[in-house]
């Protein structure tokens, strides 16, 4: 069963990327931000003597979890239920949204506060809640910026990475209640404005919604890693807490966190540790919500599990290190990928979760330079999966007519015979002779224009090596 929701691109990557490439401000903002974070990351990763051993352990733990997933999911459900949580299962985005909406509607609440979560972004929960007349407020600063701007996130960890401080100030001035024109673009002033805006919501909200970074099978514990304290507010103050968790988030035992709490913060924000990590198990009387629900979501994960090479994408811990080192992401930004999972990991995760449509262009959104594999804390071989998915895409189309295939069929007929090949080269040189002196061709007529829209074509040389050799 394929995944649905905000992981399905509406248009092919090349079309979306071409539009984004026109935005010079976006490129400037992205370059500054991604370079800042990759420098920080390199510095703190360099402090850890056993980094490679931790990466190997992290990858192996995740692979082990995938091999034992049925048992571990059952174990998690049993432990969490025993601790007082209610566990639900959702096959796809629509079913997950329906469960959460029903749970919220079952309380008297018409407003919910949300912790930043990729799973709820993925299933399009905010849109579903809105349709049911429930207002969902994003409380992570970057998510709030994006929500106020009526925009969509463009980065896994820093969803508003495409905005600079003066753009954020303008969004707050025009969209945040109670903010005056006097607000400056000083980051502390902007953070303070967000604190004031959200404080009343935290203290009055009766329902909180979160995701989870890890779910511990042994104990039924959920773990949320964050920075601002908005997560802690949403996880502890409301009466009801609903957590949406992808089925691949399971870890067998509590002690496995010793690996991931070292890998995740350093890879994501380039800090030794994120300011706050919360862990809770079911319900604790007198401390935190009185009712906790956990929605376990498939949404294409089992389909991804079926692919022997592609399944390593399910190791992903959503750190976003691969985005920050990717030359393609740095130029086009997150929106071009069309899914809530942008960048290199998105290029392999989104097509596998959804298996068709515009996402089939995503495996080509890469230079295959390999920087993403080096940065990945759980050693997902992203280039390997990209090539594998490209191969699958080509195999699926084999036998169907296409201009490209027709061209290559003729080309292979020409290149199979030395005389035919030499004649073709002579013809090409003669044909291009009037253009000599221009160096490179900027534009070719259709269908070759598909190539020259974004690349220049070199002209054939005046003589071939064989001709030159024959004259010696």
């Amino acid at each position: 069963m394929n995944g649905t929701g905000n992981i399905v691109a509406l248009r092919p990557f090349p079309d979306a990327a071409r539009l984004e490439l026109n935005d010079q401000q976006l490129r400037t903002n992205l370059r500054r931000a991604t370079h800042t974070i990759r420098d920080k990351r390199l510095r703190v990763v360099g402090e850890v003597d056993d980094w490679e051993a931790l990466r190997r352990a992290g990858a192996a733990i995740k692979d082990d979890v995938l091999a034992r997933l049925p048992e571990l999911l059952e174990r998690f459900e049993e432990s969490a239920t025993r601790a007082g949580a209610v566990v639900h299962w959702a096959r796809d985005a629509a079913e997950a949204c329906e469960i959460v909406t029903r749970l919220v509607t079952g309380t008297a609440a018409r407003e919910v506060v949300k912790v930043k979560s990729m799973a709820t972004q993925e299933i399009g929960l905010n849109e579903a809640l809105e349709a049911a007349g429930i207002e969902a407020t994003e409380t992570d600063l970057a998510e709030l910026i994006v929500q106020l701007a009526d925009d969509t996130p463009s980065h896994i960890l820093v969803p508003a990475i495409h905005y600079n401080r003066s753009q954020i100030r303008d969004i707050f001035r025009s969209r945040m209640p109670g903010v005056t024109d006097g607000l400056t673009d000083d980051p502390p002033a902007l953070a303070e404005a967000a604190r004031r805006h959200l404080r009343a919501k935290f203290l009055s909200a009766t329902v909180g919604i979160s995701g989870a970074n890890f779910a511990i099978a042994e104990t039924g514990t959920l773990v949320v890693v964050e920075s601002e304290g908005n997560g802690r507010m949403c996880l502890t103050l409301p009466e009801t807490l609903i957590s949406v968790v992808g089925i691949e988030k399971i870890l067998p035992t509590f002690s496995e966190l010793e690996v991931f709490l070292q890998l995740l913060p350093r890879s994501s924000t380039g800090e030794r540790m994120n300011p706050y990590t919360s862990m809770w198990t079911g319900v604790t009387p007198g401390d935190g919500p009185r009712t906790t629900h956990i929605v376990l979501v498939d949404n294409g994960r089992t389909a991804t599990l079926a692919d022997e090479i592609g399944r390593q994408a399910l190791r992903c811990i959503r750190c976003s290190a691969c985005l920050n080192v990717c030359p393609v992401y740095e130029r086009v930004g997150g929106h071009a990928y069309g899914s809530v999972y942008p960048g290199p990991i998105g290029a392999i995760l989104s097509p596998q979760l959804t298996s068709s449509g515009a996402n089939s262009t995503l495996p080509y959104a890469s230079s295959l330079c390999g920087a993403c594999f080096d940065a990945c804390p759980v050693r997902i071989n992203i280039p390997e999966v990209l090539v594998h998915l490209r191969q699958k895409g080509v195999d699926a189309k084999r036998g169907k007519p296409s201009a490209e295939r027709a061209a290559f069929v003729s080309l292979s007929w020409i290149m199979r015979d030395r005389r035919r090949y030499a004649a073709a080269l002579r013809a090409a040189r003669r044909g291009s002779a009037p253009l000599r002196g221009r160096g490179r061709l900027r534009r070719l007529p259709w269908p070759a224009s598909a190539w020259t829209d974004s690349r220049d074509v070199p002209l054939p040389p005046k003589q071939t090596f064989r001709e030159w050799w024959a004259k010696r």
Partner: protein
Amino acid sequence: MSSARTEILARVRAHRPASAPPVPRDYLPDVPGIDVVEVLVDRLADYRAGVHRASAATLPGVLAGLVATSSTVVAPPGLPAEWLAEVAGPVLRDFPGAPISVADLDRPGVTVVTGAAVAIAVTGTLILDAAPDQGRRVLSLVPDHHVCVIWTDQISGGVPAALARLADPSRPITLISGPSATSDIELNRVEGVHGPRRLDVVVAARS
């Protein structure tokens, strides 16, 4: 139609890898050869937390100094009374039967004083596990100022050694590394977002 649970589990069973190789555990169980107290102090200061030294004898005086300008001092149920013996103003005690309201915790000038379960030196992290000297999670979240006491014998070097010291993973656990902070605006770190604006850590030696 079968239930979502049955269907998902059946699909996971059908598609999972046959087996996975064993997990290599050759990463370090702790960070060897460091002075855990000095490293913790260094890392906390790097996060711009206030760091103070005390002994069992000087702790009440150090704490009294840190809360001197507070309007109210809040304490979890099991915080040793002698720690706050020199505090001049009122001390509000949070009890399970009579919890302090969130509105009261949110008042200007409230300081909470807590203990901690464990600390991780290399990451500058305090771990609270809701033991009686730490109390409910909201106590260290809503007030503007958090003063946390960590004994030097509670400090571990690295993450694995520290997590292994936690008594019960199913308690509510909070890891705190510096004050609340955001990096969402051009990836500049800004302290003091939704949690306490100010974090003071008292590193105390038992003797």
